[in-house]
């Protein structure tokens, strides 16, 4: 695009003016305040829109009240067009194709397409070159300049670099990477961490809650169990109390002896008794019959006995005969002795005293007198009083006299008795008398014996007779004996007859006995069967058994009557207790147990209630969710803020990266022109510009290399201008658009300004250049507009 004409209706100090532009280099010369910048602003305004009040201070309202705006006639690939823009606010854009005066229907779009890809900004960046840029350039530090130069290949690098720095600063204000940073984002992070820690702490409450819930379920179980235990214990107590009430009855019932006694059937017992009676009867019958059998021998012996008794009597009778004979002999002897004496009377036997007197009378008399004399003498010698001695003599004399008298009387009696016999004879017959006396005794004895014997025999005879049942016919023993013998003989005969008869009866009895025995045995066997059935040995046992059974029945009934008052299960329980005391003890223990359980129950219940209340509180507590939401909000906030931080940081990188990429891409194309331009501007002092890594090195004709930072300000400026122009030139290859230079080289010396002008003239071959300047050293250029 090239600008051919400028028509200003009203814009700043300009109104109703028109300029025709050279299509190559158009130089516009004017003093300060002559309207150079206003003209430039008008051109930009028509193309990119008028400035708004908000955007810039100067809106170039026409000073003389002309209508704001104007138009440009431009040459494009599609011909010439008039671009007219009027009014600052709600401005109207009209574009007319000059060839046929056709008005473009969508002028905004047409213009946008025509300018594309240029924008006001990129136009400023690339093709608008002003004093401002140089001033700006001078203000930046050397490293930044280097950065700027390095990025100069990109559109708008100056501003982008500023922006990048600004982003970085903004980001750094948000957040400091160092741990001790106190920027707002650092604080937000800290605040979030505090919340997060609190949340973690609260989430640990969950574990406690769950643990406690476990405890709750355990306690609930425990309480339920205790409740059961409680009921059970209470029931136990009730039971035990009940048992205690029943114990006495139970105890009494237990005291009733209960034996397992076998019952005896009535019929068995009756049958047994019947059998027993029959057995007894049979046995007694048999016994009697057997007795009957044994009676006969006794009868026979009776006869025999009678016979023996008779024989004894006979012997006794013969003995009697002998004794009488002996009696008669003794009597004869006595008579012989009696015959010796006159009177036929046998005197009495002398006594021993009499005998002595008869034989020793004289001797004893002499002895007695001699003794008396001797004694008289002896006493005379001893006893002094004579009267005493005389007394003794008298006594003695009387004594002797008396002796003599007596003796004579005795002897005379004896002789009278034994008359005619003298003393000596008397003495001789003494043994005979003695014998006679003996005989007398024997006779007496034998008489007694005979009498006795006689009585015995008579008694025996009479007894026998009585036994034989006969009357004795005679008193004489002999006859009686005979009579009895005869009787016995008869009796024997009778007996023999009887025996025959008896033997017949006996065999009959034997038969009967045998029959009875068989029956008896049978009955005994029957009875035994019954006994065996009841395991007894005899009838009494069986009867006792029956009695015992009936007693037991009675006991049982009593027991049942008592025990029925106690339920069966209670009986079983009661039987487990040794005694009433054990039961009481048990009840007491159960009471203690109950108390313990109650206490435990109460404790557990209280504990459960406490934990449950706590759990309820935990469950209804939504602090956790509130905190969670708070943390979530903080997270959102952190993400937002950090994305802001990161976006700023990254935008910074992005800018550098984009600028660098663009520059890297353009530098090779720019370099030829930039080097030439720089060389000329430095009057050939510098020959080369090199980009080495992140440095720009310039080299002199004498091969001295300098870093940008070590160059003088002027040289730096020349380098900058050279590169800006190079950029514009490179881009002009793509976009044909006028370059506007507004006092771009104001600081250059005239020589360099001339060089610059030369270069612009060369440049304008390809691209229209509108050069606004305060002064120009040459008038070589046609169509120079002077304001």
């Amino acid at each position, binding site marked *: 695009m090239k600008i051919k004409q400028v028509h200003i209706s009203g814009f700043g100090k300009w109104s109703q003016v028109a300029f025709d532009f050279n299509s190559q280099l158009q130089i516009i010369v004017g003093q300060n305040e002559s309207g150079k910048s206003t003209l430039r602003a008008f051109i930009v305004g028509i193309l990119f829109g008028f400035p708004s009040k908000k955007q810039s201070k100067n809106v170039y309202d026409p000073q003389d009240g002309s209508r704001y705006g104007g138009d440009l006639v431009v040459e494009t690939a599609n011909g010439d067009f008039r671009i007219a823009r009027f009014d600052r606010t709600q401005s109207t854009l009209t574009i007319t194709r000059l060839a046929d005066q056709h008005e473009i229907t969508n002028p905004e779009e047409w213009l946008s397409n025509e300018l594309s890809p240029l924008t006001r900004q990129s136009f400023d960046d690339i093709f608008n070159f002003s004093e401002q840029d140089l001033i700006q350039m001078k203000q930046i530090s050397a490293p930044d300049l280097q950065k700027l130069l390095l990025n100069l290949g990109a559109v708008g690098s100056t501003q982008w670099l500023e*922006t990048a720095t600004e982003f970085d600063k903004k980001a750094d204000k948000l957040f400091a990477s*160092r741990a001790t940073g106190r920027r707002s984002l650092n604080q937000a992070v800290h605040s979030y961490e505090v919340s997060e820690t609190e949340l973690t702490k609260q989430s640990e409450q969950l574990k406690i809650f769950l643990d406690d819930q476990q405890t709750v379920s355990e306690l609930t179980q425990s309480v339920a169990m205790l409740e059961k235990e409680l009921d059970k214990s209470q029931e136990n107590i009730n039971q035990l109390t009940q048992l205690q009430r029943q114990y006495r009855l139970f105890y009494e019932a237990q005291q009733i002896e209960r034996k397992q006694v076998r019952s005896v059937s009535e019929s068995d017992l009756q049958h047994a008794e019947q059998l027993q009676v029959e057995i007894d009867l049979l046995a007694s019958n048999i016994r009697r019959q057997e007795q009957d059998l044994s009676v006969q021998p006794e009868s026979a012996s009776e006869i025999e006995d009678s016979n023996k008794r008779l024989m004894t009597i006979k012997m006794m009778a013969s003995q009697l005969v002998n004794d009488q004979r002996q009696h008669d002999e003794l009597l004869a002897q006595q008579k012989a002795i009696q015959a010796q004496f006159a009177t036929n009377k046998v005197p009495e036997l002398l006594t021993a005293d009499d005998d002595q007197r008869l034989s020793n009378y004289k001797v004893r008399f002499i002895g007695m007198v001699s003794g008396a004399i001797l004694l008289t003498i002896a006493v005379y010698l001893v006893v002094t009083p004579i009267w005493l001695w005389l007394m003794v003599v008298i006594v003695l004399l009387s004594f002797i006299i008396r002796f003599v008298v007596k003796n004579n009387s005795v002897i005379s009696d004896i002789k009278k008795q034994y008359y005619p016999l003298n003393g000596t004879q008397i003495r001789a017959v003494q043994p005979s008398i003695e014998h006679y006396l003996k005989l007398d005794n024997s006779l007496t004895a034998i008489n007694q014996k005979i009498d006795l014997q006689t009585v015995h025999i008579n008694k025996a005879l009479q007894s026998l007779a009585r036994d034989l049942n006969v009357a004795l016919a005679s008193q004489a023993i002999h006859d009686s004996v005979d009579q009895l013998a005869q009787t016995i003989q008869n009796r024997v005969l009778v007996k023999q007859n009887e025996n025959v008869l008896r033997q017949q009866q006996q065999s009959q009895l034997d038969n009967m006995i045998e029959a009875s025995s068989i029956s008896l045995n049978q009955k005994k066997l029957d009875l035994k069967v019954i006994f065996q059935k009841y395991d007894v040995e005899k009838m009494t046992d069986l009867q006792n058994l029956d009695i015992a059974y009936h007693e037991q029945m009675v006991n049982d009934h009593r027991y049942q009557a008592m025990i029925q008052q106690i339920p069966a299960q209670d009986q079983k329980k009661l039987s487990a207790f040794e005694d009433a005391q054990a039961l009481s003890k048990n009840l007491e223990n159960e009471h203690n147990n109950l108390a313990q359980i109650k206490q435990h129950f109460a404790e557990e219940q209280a504990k459960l209630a406490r934990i449950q209340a706590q759990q309820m509180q935990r469950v209804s*507590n939504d602090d956790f969710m509130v905190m969670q939401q708070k943390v*979530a909000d903080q997270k959102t906030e952190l993400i937002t803020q950090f994305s802001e931080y990161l976006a700023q940081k990254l935008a910074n990188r992005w800018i550098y990266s984009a600028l660098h990429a663009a520059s890297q891409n353009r530098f090779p194309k720019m370099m030829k022109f930039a080097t030439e331009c720089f060389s000329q501007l430095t009057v050939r002092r510098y020959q080369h510009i090199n980009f080495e890594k992140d440095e720009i090195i310039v080299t002199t004709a004498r091969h001295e290399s300098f870093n940008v930072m070590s160059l003088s300000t002027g040289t730096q400026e020349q380098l900058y201008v050279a590169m800006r122009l190079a950029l514009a030139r490179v881009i002009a290859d793509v976009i044909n658009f006028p370059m506007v230079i507004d006092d771009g080289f104001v600081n250059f010396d005239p020589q360099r300004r001339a060089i610059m002008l030369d270069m612009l003239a060369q440049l304008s071959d390809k691209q229209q250049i509108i050069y606004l300047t305060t002064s120009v050293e040459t008038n070589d250029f046609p169509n120079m507009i002077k304001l």
Partner: protein
Amino acid sequence: MKFIHAGDIHLGNPFSGLDGQLPEMLKETVHKATITAFIKLIDAAISESVDFVLFPGDLYNAAENSAQIQSIVNQQFNRLLEAKIPVYLSFGNHDFEADRRQHLPWPVNVVVLPQQVVTQSLTIKSGKRVAITGFSYQTQQQATRIIDDFPQKNRQFDYQIGMYHGSVGTEGSSYAPFSVGDLLSKNYDYWALGHIHKRQTLNQRPFVGYSGNLQGLNLTETGPKGYYLVSDDTGRLVPTFVAVAPVVWHEVTFDHVADELDLIQRAKTLSDDEVGFWTINISQTSDPEFISRITHGFTLEGLRANMASNVWIVRLNLIMDYQSAQINDVIDQQFWENSLTQLMSSFEVNDYLPNQVPFFVRDYFTTSAGKHLLRQRMTELISERRHLHED
């Protein structure tokens, strides 16, 4: 035959994307939102006397929950127990450790599917026999093709239902990758999917799809949220969506908003029976002052003050619609674009954020969403500058 399919309950999960300025009244609603929705679901299960309830994963966040959540889950499942309604529960990527962590005991009507694919059978009230086949996550990810472990439909059952927490993907994807064809090949009568929060149908006959989450949890989870009430329609299991979420997220774009007043007038037309959380995008607005007020948050503040009590403006976004044109037309566009691509591809969050920055922040910016956000914000920043430079 009637049952509920409810994926991704996320009980007790906080909402993300809120800035802490929420009024107290709404805060209360937000805290209880997932719980309210869950209880509504249980209420419906009982009132509709469904045969069973399926929760294909992410019932709650196992790592972060409270006594209250535990107790609510327990209470509500016990209500189902009383109503004799069995619950089939499989764990997803958020509650994968639910069974390993200490928790209140599950009521007996709750069947927790194990890590391996198992088939549970039950006979429903109508006498029909139903098989439910599924599995639980044991780790946060399930990269193997567990779909291959699902058996073919067993013909002895009247219905066979697959419970599956995962997303369509190729082998090696993190969340039990499957293809719709994989599922269809099993010949099941219904596939109750979980994991994706957006309600969507992958296949109509038989139904394969996500019920979406019960309550939207952030500004991207817009629209009514709830569960599927599935019933038999002449032998075919047909889901009917039932909305229960007490808070509904929305996103709306206003074009050509003249100024703040205009914005407020337009925003006042936004209303909702429930509590509505709105994200408002403003596009084609070029008034720099307005834009500046928006970017500095003044507009949002004023907007919020003018809204009904059940309408909350979560965010006010500027859609920089001039940016694309500007960037496209710039001479160095290619360099800028390349640089951005290069920058973002080589972007390492740790180069910018030290360890002291919470992990979730750094982690977020490694995700595509995080990177996207950065990219957008960077573009905004640059565009804004470009715009400023213009003036």
